[in-house]
């Protein structure tokens, strides 16, 4: 008897419908084979399905079982076919018909339980788009699938429960979309008000967040660079629905949504260690997976100790940073992952870290300092608009000084200004395919970032004094544009230009 069950595979961010055809034949020697370009993980599915059925108070048929995964030329991987295969087999032996317009996906454990499986959201989205009505997934993945409305999502704890439902012996209610939405934007690890001192660096963070500028923080170890970076997601405007879905989809595909997890509403913050490989950072592999830059999509990618990252790894960031997405081509497929993130990086001023420190003498020679700074990839620095020095803070000065802590603004107040500035930018660039000041090209600058005469004069004077390259000139204008936006000023005044000059590169300059 032949049974057809529908399932879904993913290729990057795209879903592909898979027909799971299960033939249980009375003829031929008893056996169990899976065909249709199945990889190792899928092949192992045989053992899981066999044990799971046996441990669910059911008999595994001693007949010739052939499973075909179609289309047969697309490579299948992963464990999500366990559930549809088991359902196909049981339909033959237990005598029920598989419900129409239904998609099955999930991994089985040997005891018959259904485990959380990656990609549930993608499957639900595909199901809705293609007119399916029901989605059958493990209970732990049901919240994730239920984000999609207009289809019924059924979550099952184990195969036995699923069978009871399919046989009509037990009723299971469809999972409702989880109402519990993350407290938007407030889930950053640090609040700005928790960071003592660092007024200039906080201001830099605000400007960077408002204009989508990449920033580099330079300072002695322990000055609070990491803390500032971790506070960044909290001052970015909250994810809108579309962005939320995009991020959740990425995390779903890469298996980064925890069991019972639902829609991601907090801006991602990724801080890969400097030992990360290029594939880990950018994405790739034999079956291309998203890298850290994609997991930081719509959020913040923090590279701590920038000098320690291998140059080749950093230079691979270049293209995706320019494009906002990444295409990985392999012989069998080509996948596409979005990667539009804000880069926050930190670096020490010198190898020992204490150059310019008032607490400890620096032990580096100028040559060592030069070589150390040269290690940072120039092309990457080109893409950093905003540089800020983060000095060590004398904690004793603040100890017991409650007023200093009280005066510090909470992230929510900063976030409001940032959101306002972003709103201004959205209106300005409406229909121009860019969203933030950081993305402005020369044509945009001419149109949207005109300086007042006096501003022009000050910038020209600064350019000759600090020997600005053409690029540094443009970056200063971009930052001045954002500062003006934060001040809700259409014209870029002298004061905006002058403040922007504070954030020019002082230690790490692109060559």
């Amino acid at each position, binding site marked *: 008897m032949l049974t057809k069950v529908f399932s879904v595979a993913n290729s990057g961010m795209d879903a592909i419908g898979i027909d799971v055809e299960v033939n249980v034949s009375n003829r031929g020697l008893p056996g169990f084979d899976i065909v249709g370009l199945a990889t190792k993980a899928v092949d192992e599915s045989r053992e899981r399905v066999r044990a799971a059925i046996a441990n669910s108070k059911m008999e595994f048929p001693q007949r010739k079982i052939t499973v075909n995964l179609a289309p047969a030329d697309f490579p299948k991987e992963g464990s999500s076919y366990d559930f549809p295969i088991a359902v196909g087999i049981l339909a033959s032996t237990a005598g029920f018909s598989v419900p129409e317009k239904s998609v099955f996906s999930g991994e089985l454990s040997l005891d018959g339980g259904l485990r959380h499986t990656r990609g549930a959201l993608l499957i639900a989205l595909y199901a809705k788009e293609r007119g399916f009505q029901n989605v059958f997934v493990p209970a732990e993945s049901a919240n994730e699938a239920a984000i999609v409305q207009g289809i019924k999502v059924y979550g099952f704890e184990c195969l036995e429960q699923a069978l009871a439902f399919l046989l009509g012996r037990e009723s299971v209610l469809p999972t409702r979309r989880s109402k519990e939405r993350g407290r938007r934007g407030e889930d950053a690890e640090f609040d700005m008000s928790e960071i003592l001192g660092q007024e*200039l660096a906080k201001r830099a963070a605000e400007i960077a967040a408002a204009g989508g500028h990449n920033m580099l923080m330079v300072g002695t170890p322990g000055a609070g660079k990491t803390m500032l970076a971790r506070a960044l997601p909290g001052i970015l405007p909250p994810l809108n629905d579309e962005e939320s879905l995009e991020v959740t989809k990425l995390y779903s595909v890469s298996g980064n949504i925890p069991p019972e997890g639902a829609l991601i509403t907090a801006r991602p913050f990724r801080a890969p260690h400097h030992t990360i490989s290029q594939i880990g950072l950018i994405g790739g592999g034999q079956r291309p997976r998203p890298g850290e830059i994609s997991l930081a999509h719509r959020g913040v990618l923090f590279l701590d100790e920038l000098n320690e990252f291998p140059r080749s790894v950093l230079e691979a960031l270049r293209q995706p940073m320019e494009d906002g997405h990444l295409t990985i081509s392999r012989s069998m497929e080509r996948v596409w992952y979005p990667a539009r993130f804000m880069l926050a990086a930190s670096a020490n001023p010198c190898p020992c870290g204490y150059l310019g420190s008032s607490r400890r003498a620096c032990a580096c020679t100028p040559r060592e300092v030069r070589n150390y700074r040269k290690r940072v990839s120039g092309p990457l620095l080109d893409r950093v608009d905003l540089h800020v*020095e983060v000095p060590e803070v004398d904690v004793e000065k603040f100890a017991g000084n409650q007023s200093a802590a009280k005066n510090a603004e909470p992230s929510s107040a900063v976030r409001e200004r940032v959101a306002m500035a972003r709103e201004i930018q959205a209106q300005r660039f409406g229909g121009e395919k860019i969203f933030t000041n950081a993305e402005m090209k020369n044509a945009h600058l001419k149109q949207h970032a005109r300086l007042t005469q006096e501003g022009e004069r000050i910038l020209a004077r600064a350019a000759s004094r600090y020997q600005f390259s053409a690029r540094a000139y443009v970056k200063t204008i971009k930052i001045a544009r954002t500062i003006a936006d934060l001040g809700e000023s259409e014209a870029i005044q002298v004061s905006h230009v*002058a403040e922007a000059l504070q954030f020019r590169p002082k230690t790490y300059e692109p060559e």
Partner: protein
Amino acid sequence: MMVVEKNVVKKEDARYPSLLRDISDAPKQLYYKGEWRPELFEQCLAVVGARRMTSYGKKVTEQIAGEVAAAGITIVSGFMYGIDETAHRAAVRAGGKTIAVMPCGINIIHPEYQADLYREITETGGLILSEFAGNFPPATWTYPKRNRIVAGLSQATLVVEAGERSGALITAGFVRKYGRKLFVVPGPITSPVSRGITQLLKGGAEVASCARDILDSYGLPSAQVVAAPNPHALHSDRGNLEGNIVRELAREPLRIDELARLLGAPVELLGTTLSLMELAGAVFEEQGKYYAH
């Protein structure tokens, strides 16, 4: 085969600096780059100090070495980074002359990334000197050798910032041995680069608090030095904030954050104001701290 060096002055040569000839262990010959003019050696001041100078050391060296050079005295130093380099640059900038004594063969620029300074020194009528020929590499024992030439060429030596057991103290030792005059610039006693200075002060070194102190010992009047703009005069009529900033910075160099706290002004306003003041030449920034001129 001996390479015949063209640019060399032997001890027997009449052109050999007489002050240097006086010392007991005078070098047998001096190799040089640049144009050898005897008047260069008439009045020399050695300026030496820490490699790891502070911003204070840099500022003081620039000021004193610049003024002394402008008055026509040749600044002699060791071309090392830090105070040495600053003294050379200050002399060049003030339109004065300077002599760099190398711890290595005359054909080597050490440290090599200061090639621009090397070029400037010879182009502005200064000299590069060494008692070592060709590509002789610098070694730990060549530095003290070099230091004796620096001290030997000069009527007086100024030490700005020196740690314990520093090269500058070795130079100061030669200064005493040759019976020349020793000036030091006092620094905060808490700084590690003040330890050598306090040691020298206790040993009877003279305090130099301005170029005048040194010029007096050469019997020279001050040169017409372009005075740094007086920030008070410059900003007397521009907002209160600038005046307050200058007042705070004159007392002690500060970061923007610290100024913001002291003056109770928002950091964005201070950033704007300080940028404009720096462009106007009223303040300057180094390693994150602002200084009043």
